[in-house]
């Protein structure tokens, strides 16, 4: 089944009315796509039946939806096992460093398109860290915040480009076995957000302890103006919420990307494979395309933004006194 958004050539114009007034171009296209969609559902039901049989791999339980996120070790370099998650991280690092140094080397008076984008991004992160951190902290931590932003953004975005990394399946091109194409993001493995969040967590606690002293930092966790026996109740909650920041930073990035990729896979055909009905795949394909666009346009950037601004907020909150 082809995964194209436009109308396939076999589009029957079932939905189009035989009106006398000429339709506008956009309306014609809309009707053609709608007709192709409904016609495709009917065609698949006629061809394969409403209730079809499951694929052998699904019926025997060999195929599982979570296979998409399984990390097969490709080869080992000493203690480092190399798998597709590592490959994605290396691609991310290469793109991040490459684009940024390329732009920084050849800054021009009259910026080109890429330089304008990078400058806008610089202004954006600069303002973000300036609003949440004071002067000396901002000077120190702006590079970290901007790096986190661009690193997570690139890592999320290359997760929506199909790359030949699925070692479980392969297809032949002129005799060469090529791994099948797959969308995978390094963020769908919990280790990647966890290590970023752990770094941020250690850093803002270190800054807080350095600024207030160990006892003073614990005191500064309390909201101001609380006295009496209620302190014994509030204090454990505040300590707990300090540690929950680690979990919430991790789970927010990880689960967003994991659930997004699972939804794209399910809507883009996997659900049809699992229930064994071909028409279900065609039926759900528009939802798959919509979710793909939503994830790639909004969620990828939003999660990078959230992680970076929360880093700034936590760092700023650690050194500020109530």
């Amino acid at each position, binding site marked *: 089944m082809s995964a194209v958004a436009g109308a396939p050539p076999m589009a029957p114009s079932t939905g189009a009315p035989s009106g006398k007034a000429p339709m506008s171009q956009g309306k014609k296209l809309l009707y053609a796509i709608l007709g192709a969609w409904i016609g495709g559902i009917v065609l698949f039901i006629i061809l394969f039946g409403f209730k079809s049989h499951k694929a052998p791999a699904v019926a025997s339980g060999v195929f599982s939806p979570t296979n998409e996120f399984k990390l097969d070790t490709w080869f080992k370099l000493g203690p480092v096992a190399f798998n597709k998650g590592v490959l994605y991280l290396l691609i991310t690092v290469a793109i991040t460093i490459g684009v940024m140094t390329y732009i920084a080397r050849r800054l021009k008076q009259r910026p080109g398109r890429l330089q304008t984008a990078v400058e806008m991004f610089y202004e954006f992160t600069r303002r973000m860290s300036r609003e949440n951190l004071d002067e000396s902290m901002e000077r120190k931590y702006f590079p970290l915040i901007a790096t986190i932003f661009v690193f997570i953004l690139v890592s999320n975005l290359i997760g929506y480009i199909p790359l030949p990394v699925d070692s479980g399946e392969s297809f032949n091109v002129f005799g060469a076995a090529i791994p099948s194409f797959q969308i995978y993001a390094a963020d769908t493995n919990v280790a990647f957000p966890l290590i970023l969040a752990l770094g941020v967590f250690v850093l803002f606690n270190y800054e807080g302890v350095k600024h207030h002293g160990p006892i003073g930092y614990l005191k500064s966790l309390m909201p101001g103006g609380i006295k009496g026996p209620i302190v014994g109740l509030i204090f454990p909650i505040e300590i707990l919420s300090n540690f929950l920041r680690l979990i919430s930073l991790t*789970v*927010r990035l990880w*689960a*967003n990307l994991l*659930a997004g990729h699972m939804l794209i896979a399910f809507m883009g055909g996997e659900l049809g494979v699992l229930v064994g009905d071909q028409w279900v795949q065609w039926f759900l394909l528009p939802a798959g395309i919509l979710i793909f666009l939503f994830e790639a346009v909004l969620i990828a950037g*939003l999660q990078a*933004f959230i992680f970076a*601004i929360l880093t700034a907020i936590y760092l700023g909150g650690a050194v500020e006194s109530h």
Partner: protein
Amino acid sequence: MQFLHLFSSFHPFLGVVEPIIKQAQDAGRAIALGAGAGGGAAGAGAGIGAVFNASIQAKTRQPELREEIERDQWLGFALTEACFFYGLVGGFIAFFL
């Protein structure tokens, strides 16, 4: 489960009880996943609605603050949306572990 095994040596219907317990466990897991995902979606949906409601009201009252309001709106959106995933992850943990 362990409690039932204590009696199993002289229980005549062990063969009948065992698959029922297995099915009940499966049912409980499925219910946990459904409650986690469904409850999380309901809560996050209400929360996201509240965030956009407040944002629209603020923007119509103070159009000149549009940029700052929208930045806070997306911050609130992402923080609220994450709550759905806490529920979902809890459901998955109950389902698979």
